[in-house]
């Protein structure tokens, strides 16, 4: 046939090209006929239907191609499923391995996502927000806010701030923020009901107003649509409710210091004790978080440089003693993320998750790859037959890949479900029962799902492709011969499987060691002695100022309460304190200078415990030098303090501390950002208070220090009535030591209620409970790392067992000959296990080196790793124990399948020839 018209020739060429794109099977069977038929028909079609007919002809073939591919895929999947069903053991182990691998990686990623990658919910264009790392003072903020060439809007807030709120005679303690009127506008949040602050609300002297979160509206106001205009009693003062936040919005920092209540700064110290001491006018008190919305096209670097210059100028103008300290004064970080991390810190933060998750996935993948390889050799006859019958290599690779993808997909689904469940259980919206507003939302979202999908696909490819390529190497003649592997080699030295095996051993040992370092380090943290007797010690928090009391009335109240509580027969000792050791809320540092005999000053840091005079007695902390507190130390103007042994060591290098004088500055805000936020100061800012050391108390533990030697420097300062104007975040704590076996808390509560039932006690706990709560994250970490390490171990041994078992079946004939020639059982066992043992040794050596390197890298990246692993790095139990454990498990994994070699009957195995 010779098409006369050019369009016909062109159409035919196009048609041929399209027909060539059909899957191989279809082309093989129908390709020629299809083309022939088209060649016959194309001319009449052109004549009868013209261009439309030609298009229809091409469309017909173009539409058919994907349909045929889908049919092929369906066939592949059906065949793959049948093959997987035929070897249920392999399928189960592969599925479990991969589910563990992908599950752990997905969990790690959703944790990362929950901590770091997520945007602040409810905020418009979170990418445009910046925040300063570390708090700033209000006068400084005002200067920064003037730069409207950089910012489309700025706001400042103080967080966390606890409020005592009474709703319908119910008293609740709620966390909130004290905010500038620009807070909501800058964040770009619109109220669900009512209105948010305007500049007019900034005028002090206006009736105080309050805004609440959607959650508060739901939990405490029952979605009351008429709630706007209602009076809420906040810290004992009536405030008008003007607005309700949108659903999901918990303020500018929802993870740490989420807010349910917002009050404007204009409410003043009368409502919020945090605003006492002219906080808004003081340059030396960095008490506010600043958030700015960048104008389009303004870079963070430019903002940082500008703000830094302003800060320098301010320091110069007001003769700040630290004005000549080099380094940046202001660091700017993205403000729309859950955690205010600097961009350069982000990869470091994510590194740990990625390394652990990646390693487990690597082990799992190489595990399955290894089993696939073994299986592929089992199937070499099937594959050889198919190759011999003319199947293309690509076709077979596709078939094998389909099988690995099926396993990966199954594991991906299971892993995602498991991770979702796990993360849901781990997520919390911790309410007031915890002393700090911390909310962790780690539920997997769309991003995590995408991650799992990508991971699954990669894993499927990774463990499927190499075995598939190897299995389909066209080496027909040897494979088709009966007996499989005809050559008997002692070591297939650099075979893919052996390499994989060594890599897997190394990775799992490294993983085991790294997680082991973490577990041992964390266990050390959990086990350090508190330094005082925690038994029979009970704590309950009270915050009379936030219940509407004045400072003077609060002092009276505590005096009366202590008298009544001490008179209870079950109580041996009682005191009130502004801080307790081992509290979740932790003590922020307070800077102080030691004053030398010649007036020289040296700056140090310590934790300040404002306490009643009986505090040390009640806790059972002995005063090792000097005297304890007396009643006169609680008078206004008294200067006595007691310091811990550690502080003496640090400041006076073992010299006589008694009678020395120190000058204390103001307490810092609780740490907000990770890493060191503010630059290190060299001088005390603002006015200090001068004290005299009258005694030295034995070291106690406070917080999560791993080392007994790292006991914190503490300054115990007697509480005076003036202190009650500024209640600490966790309120005042009544500390009671009782005789054993008495429910003293009920009696204490009754005494409180008898004295004044308007005072709402909260967070009642025993000291062991408080320590337990503090250690909870540590325990979780121990479990998590422990589980990851054990998963790795299990996976590696499954892999090893598989390889050994396979090698036994491979060498069945060789073993049969050896036994027939008189080899003993031990000889055979040695022969079979030798190979495994060599792999174990090589893998262990690499793994040991890898673990040392890995933990060093991680320590360098993350301070917390350095802190926990630092003490355990050279732990001999771990360094010897982990390889031994792995070797033991590995030898077992080798031995069990190797034993089957003993059951080989030479007669049977040789007859198979």
């Amino acid at each position, binding site marked *: 046939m010779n098409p006369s018209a050019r369009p016909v020739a062109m159409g035919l060429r196009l048609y041929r090209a399209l027909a060539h794109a059909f899957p191989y099977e279809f082309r093989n069977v129908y390709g*020629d006929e299809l083309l022939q038929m088209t060649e016959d*028909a194309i001319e009449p079609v052109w004549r009868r239907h013209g261009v439309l007919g030609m298009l229809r002809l091409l469309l*017909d*073939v173009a539409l058919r191609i994907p349909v045929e591919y889908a049919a092929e895929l369906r066939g592949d999947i059906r065949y793959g499923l049948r093959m997987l069903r035929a070897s249920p053991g392999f399928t189960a182990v592969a599925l479990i391995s991969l589910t563990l691998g992908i599950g752990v990686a997905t969990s790690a990623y959703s944790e990362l996502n929950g901590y770091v990658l997520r945007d602040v919910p409810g905020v418009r264009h979170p990418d445009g927000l910046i925040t300063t790392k570390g708090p700033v003072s209000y006068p400084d903020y005002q200067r920064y806010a003037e730069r409207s060439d950089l910012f489309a809007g700025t706001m400042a807030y103080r967080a966390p701030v606890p409020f005592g709120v009474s709703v319908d005679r119910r008293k609740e303690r709620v966390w909130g923020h004290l905010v500038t009127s620009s807070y909501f506008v800058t964040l770009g949040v619109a109220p669900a009901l009512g209105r948010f602050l305007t500049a007019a609300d900034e005028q002090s002297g206006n009736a105080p107003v309050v805004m609440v979160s959607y959650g508060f509206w739901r939990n405490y106001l029952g979605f009351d649509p008429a709630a706007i205009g209602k009076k809420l009693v906040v810290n004992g003062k009536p405030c008008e409710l003007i607005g309700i936040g949108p659903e999901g919005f918990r303020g500018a920092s929802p993870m740490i210091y989420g807010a349910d209540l917002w009050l404007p700064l204009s409410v003043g110290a009368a409502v919020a004790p945090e605003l006492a001491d002219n906080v808004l006018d003081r340059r030396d008190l960095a008490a506010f978080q600043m958030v700015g919305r960048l104008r389009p096209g303004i870079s963070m670097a430019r903002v940082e440089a500008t703000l830094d210059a302003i800060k320098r100028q301010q320091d110069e103008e007001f003769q700040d003693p630290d004005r000549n300290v080099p380094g940046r004064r202001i660091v700017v970080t993205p403000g729309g993320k859950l955690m205010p991390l600097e961009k350069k810190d982000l990869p470091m933060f994510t590194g740990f998750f990625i390394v652990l998750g990646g390693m487990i996935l690597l082990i799992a993948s190489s595990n399955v790859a290894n089993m696939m390889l073994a299986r592929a050799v089992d199937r070499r006859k099937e594959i050889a037959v198919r190759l011999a019958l003319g199947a293309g290599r690509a076709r077979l690779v596709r078939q094998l890949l389909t099988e690995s993808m099926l396993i990966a997909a199954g594991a991906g689904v299971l892993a995602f479900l498991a991770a979702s469940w796990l993360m849901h259980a781990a997520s919390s919206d911790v309410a007031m029962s915890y002393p700090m507003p911390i909310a962790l939302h780690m539920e997997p979202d769309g991003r995590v799902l995408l991650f799992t999908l990508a991971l699954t696909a990669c894993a499927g490819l990774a463990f499927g492709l190499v075995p598939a390529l190897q299995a389909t190497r066209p080496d027909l003649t040897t494979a088709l011969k009966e007996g499989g592997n005809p050559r008997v080699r002692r070591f297939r030295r650099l075979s893919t499987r052996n390499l994989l095996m060594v890599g897997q051993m190394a990775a799992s040992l490294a993983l085991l060691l790294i997680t082991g370092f973490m577990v041992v380090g964390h266990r050390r943290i959990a086990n350090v002695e508190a330094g005082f007797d925690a038994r029979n010690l009970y704590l309950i928090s009270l915050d009379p100022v936030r219940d509407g009391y004045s400072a003077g009335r609060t002092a009276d109240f505590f005096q009366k309460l202590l008298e009544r509580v001490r008179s209870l027969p079950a109580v041996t000792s009682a005191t009130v304190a502004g801080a307790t050791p081992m509290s979740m809320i932790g003590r922020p540092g307070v800077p102080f200078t030691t004053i030398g005999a010649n007036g020289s000053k040296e700056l140090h840091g310590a934790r300040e415990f404002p306490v009643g005079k009986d505090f040390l007695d009640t806790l059972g902390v002995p005063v090792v030098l000097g005297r304890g507190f007396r009643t006169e130390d609680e008078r206004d103007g008294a200067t006595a303090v007691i310091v811990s042994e550690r502080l003496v060591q640090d400041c006076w290098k073992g010299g006589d501390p008694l009678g020395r004088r120190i000058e204390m500055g103001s307490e810092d805000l609780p740490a907000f950002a990770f890493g060191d936020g503010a630059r290190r100061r060299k001088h005390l800012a603002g006015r200090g208070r001068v004290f005299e050391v009258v005694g030295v108390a034995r070291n106690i533990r406070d917080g999560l220090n791993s080392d007994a030697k790292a006991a914190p420097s503490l300054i115990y300062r007697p509480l005076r009535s003036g202190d009650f104007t500024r209640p600490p975040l966790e309120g005042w704590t009544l500390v009671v030591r009782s005789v054993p076996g008495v429910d003293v808390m009920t009696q204490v509560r009754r005494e409180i209620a008898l004295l004044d039932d308007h005072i709402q006690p909260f967070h009642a706990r025993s000291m062991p409970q408080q320590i337990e709560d503090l250690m909870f994250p540590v325990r979780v970490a121990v479990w998590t790392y422990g589980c990851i390490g054990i998963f790795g171990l299990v996976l590696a041994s499954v892999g090893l067992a598989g390889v050994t078992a396979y090698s036994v079946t491979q060498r069945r004939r060789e073993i049969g000959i050896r036994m027939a020639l008189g080899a003993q059982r031990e000889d055979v066992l040695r022969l079979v296990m030798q190979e495994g043992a060599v792999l174990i040794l090589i893998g262990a050596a690499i793994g040991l080196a890898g673990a040392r390197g890995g933990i060093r890298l991680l320590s360098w990246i993350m301070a917390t790793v350095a802190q926990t692993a630092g003490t355990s790095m050279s732990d001999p139990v771990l360094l010897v124990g982990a390889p031994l454990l792995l070797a033991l498990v590995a030898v077992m994994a080798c031995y069990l399948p190797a034993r089957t070699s003993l059951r080989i009957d030479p007669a049977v195995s040789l007859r198979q020839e």
Partner: protein
Amino acid sequence: MQEVLDRTDGKVHLWPATLYGTLKRLIEAELIEESDVRPAPEADDARRRYYRLTLFGRRVLAAESERLENLVRVIRSKRSLSEAES
């Protein structure tokens, strides 16, 4: 192709790729099979393949045409009923 077009008075146009896709499906469903019976050499083309109905295919065809006949009968009787009513 041409024959289908002619037989259906030009209403059904069976395009090549669709035709072979359908053939493949019919073979997979075991409704048709390749046939050894070839026409006289002068009408034959060596490249051509011939198919015939299997026994199963014949039975499916019979059942299907019976089903369609029944369907048509039901519709006809309904229509005549409704025509009689109106």
